[in-house]
């Protein structure tokens, strides 16, 4: 099941610079997208989401961009901080009546922010 793909297993950036994490999806029914952050031995923590009716959502240092025609979304972190070092998961869902609202996750991208 490769409905959600994160093709970069890892990313390394310098503190203060921008981190850009990418995600592609294949199911055109997806209408809600989320980014989760995960530290080792912890559960995923919700970061930011975007509905398919928008193309951008911003929350502090985090911005998610959605390009529906390309079936692509990205997470921008500006400025990156060492504490941002974690695994980032992209997830997608179909939020229509009768659906269960389950999330389909990508494989994750390990972000390392170097001081």
């Amino acid at each position, binding site marked *: 099941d490769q409905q959600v793909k994160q093709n970069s297993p890892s990313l390394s950036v310098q503190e203060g610079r921008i981190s850009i994490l990418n995600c592609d999806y294949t199911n055109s029914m997806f209408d809600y997208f*989320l980014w*989760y952050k995960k530290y080792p031995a*912890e*559960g995923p923590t919700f970061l930011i989401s975007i509905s398919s009716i928008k193309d951008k959502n911003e929350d502090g240092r985090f911005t998610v961009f959605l390009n529906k025609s390309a079936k692509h979304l990205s997470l921008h972190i500006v400025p990156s901080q060492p504490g941002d070092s974690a695994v980032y998961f992209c997830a997608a869902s179909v*939020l229509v009546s009768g659906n*269960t609202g389950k*999330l389909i*996750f990508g494989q*994750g991208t390990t972000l390392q922010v170097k001081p």
Partner: protein
Amino acid sequence: EPEVTQTPSHQVTQMGQEVILRCVPISNHLYFYWYRQILGQKVEFLVSFYNNEISEKSEIFDDQFSVERPDGSNFTLKIRSTKLEDSAMYFCASKGDFSGELFFGEGSRLTVL
């Protein structure tokens, strides 16, 4: 801040044994889920539960798996006869409304020997 809690944090069991993983979702949440993550792999959906019944289950969730919400606060995942390949981190999650984000617990690590 309300959180999803899971017990045990780590369980080691022999192949063929029954295991019950417990979760206390956030108290006013209505939608409940179990996911798992095998080491090095993606987080995979197992089952969703709403209105006291399973609303969807994945291919992984075969007859060896069951879920229960016995008392209105706990949400359990039972594996009747564990296999080596059941070794994984199991995450419970809940959400308050259909369009909200999913809140995850810290996970229960299951090791089957």
